[in-house]
């Protein structure tokens, strides 16, 4: 019964989309079929893969740095109480601030290049990685720490055997959420910087009124992000098998 309903909702959406293109509800609104053919053309021409590669480059650069710097920073904040309390204030501000507001500042400081979009990806994702790593350390169950101390565990044993493993779920959840934020940052950066990656494809298609190519690239971007997030979720599930 369930798959039938899911299929029904997809078919319903496609019919709605087809009707929207038939009307058309706005200038040169592409039909699902036109979008799919445009997507295939883009893939065949290699333009899509090349753009994805460029976007991936700044994503991995920015997100990689966010994880590489964010996790240790969060752990440090968790372990060293005062650093944690002060850091917490700045993190809350960074998380409360709509990060898109920082994009013009980054573009000014780093110029119109891949580095800028990598920095934007970093700014979008790093606060969440750090906050979750910090939270993970802070929420370690005192009973476990007591038990380890009872066995006279050294500081390093305590950290690596108790604190880190129990903080892992929170850290991984933070990384997964940060990745979704990284994609948002990547897209905003590329739509504003535009001469790079998938954002450029979208903006050039838009300026040429090739809405089928634009919708196709947007569809591809969403699918690509969804696949990446699903992969990270599967990795997370495998790493945390003990938690099931």
């Amino acid at each position, binding site marked *: 019964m369930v798959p039938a309903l*899911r299929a029904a*909702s997809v078919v319903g959406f496609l019919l709605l989309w087809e009707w929207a293109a038939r009307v058309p509800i706005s200038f040169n609104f592409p039909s699902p079929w036109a979008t799919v053919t445009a997507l295939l053309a883009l893939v065949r021409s290699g333009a899509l893969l090349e753009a994805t590669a460029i976007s991936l480059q700044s994503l991995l650069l920015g997100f990689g740095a966010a994880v590489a710097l964010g996790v240790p920073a969060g752990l440090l904040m968790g372990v060293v109480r005062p650093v944690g309390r002060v850091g917490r204030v700045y993190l809350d501000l960074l998380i409360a601030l709509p990060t*898109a507001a920082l*994009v013009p500042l980054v573009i000014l400081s780093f110029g119109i290049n891949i580095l800028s979009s990598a920095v934007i990806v970093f700014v979008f994702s790093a606060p969440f990685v750090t906050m979750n790593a910090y939270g993970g350390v802070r929420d370690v169950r005192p009973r476990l720490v007591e038990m380890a101390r009872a066995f006279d565990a050294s500081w390093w044993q305590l950290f690596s055997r108790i604190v880190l493993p129990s903080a892992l779920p929170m850290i991984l959840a933070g990384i997964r959420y940060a990745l979704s934020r990284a994609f948002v940052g990547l897209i905003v950066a590329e739509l504003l910087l535009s001469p790079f990656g998938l954002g450029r494809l979208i903006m050039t298609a*838009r300026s040429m009124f090739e809405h089928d190519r634009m919708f196709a690239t947007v569809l591809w971007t969403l699918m690509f992000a969804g696949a990446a997030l699903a992969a990270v979720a599967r990795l997370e599930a495998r790493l945390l098998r003990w938690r099931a």
Partner: protein
Amino acid sequence: MTLAALVGLAIGWELLGRLDVSLFVPPLSRVAATWWQLLGDGTLARAAASSLASLAKGFVPAAALGVAVGLAMGRFAVVRHLLDGWVNALMSAPLSALVPVLIALFGVRDTVVAATVFMFSFFVVVVNTQTGVRATDRSLVDMARAFGAGEVALFGRIYLPAALPAVMLGLRLGAVQAVKGMVVGEMLISLVGLGERLIYYGNTFLITELYAVILSVLALALLIAQAAQAADRALVRWK
């Protein structure tokens, strides 16, 4: 503690600015002066007014529709199976990629900002409301039915109150996402509101004005987050 950290940040910023480390880090005092001047000549007021208008036009329907859809998905399996595929997929997707589609759909006007606000906040509300309804204690439902409660009474007396804390959490998270959607939407069409000011000052190298607007956006975001939290505490007293 928070105050000390903020004061520390302010002093650090001022010193850094004074040392003129880089063109892009002006001293806080100059930023504050510019902010005051922008407030004076009405720029900030106009931009903020337009931003808040888009925020309301986008978030209010997102909240209302989100709770309704969330309740329906929580209560009726059919609705859930129909929609949960879309909701979960779009919940974590980079919706900013859809803004150009919104521009193609609504044309180049501020409705796009309201649509982006709706898109950013709607799914958060739906998911949290749905979780709230589904977490309703089965025996509460049986108890009410045992007293002869019909569908409407079940919704009004059991499902909605039971889900209220989760609904409020959804609305609170929704409000935060709404503000982010507002800024993204405004910047991508760069026509109205605070987002447009960010783009304009960015393009014209007016650094202190840029910082002034960034701080204003932060203030707006914090204000809305506090307001949502206050509403949450007020409505859900028993938790």
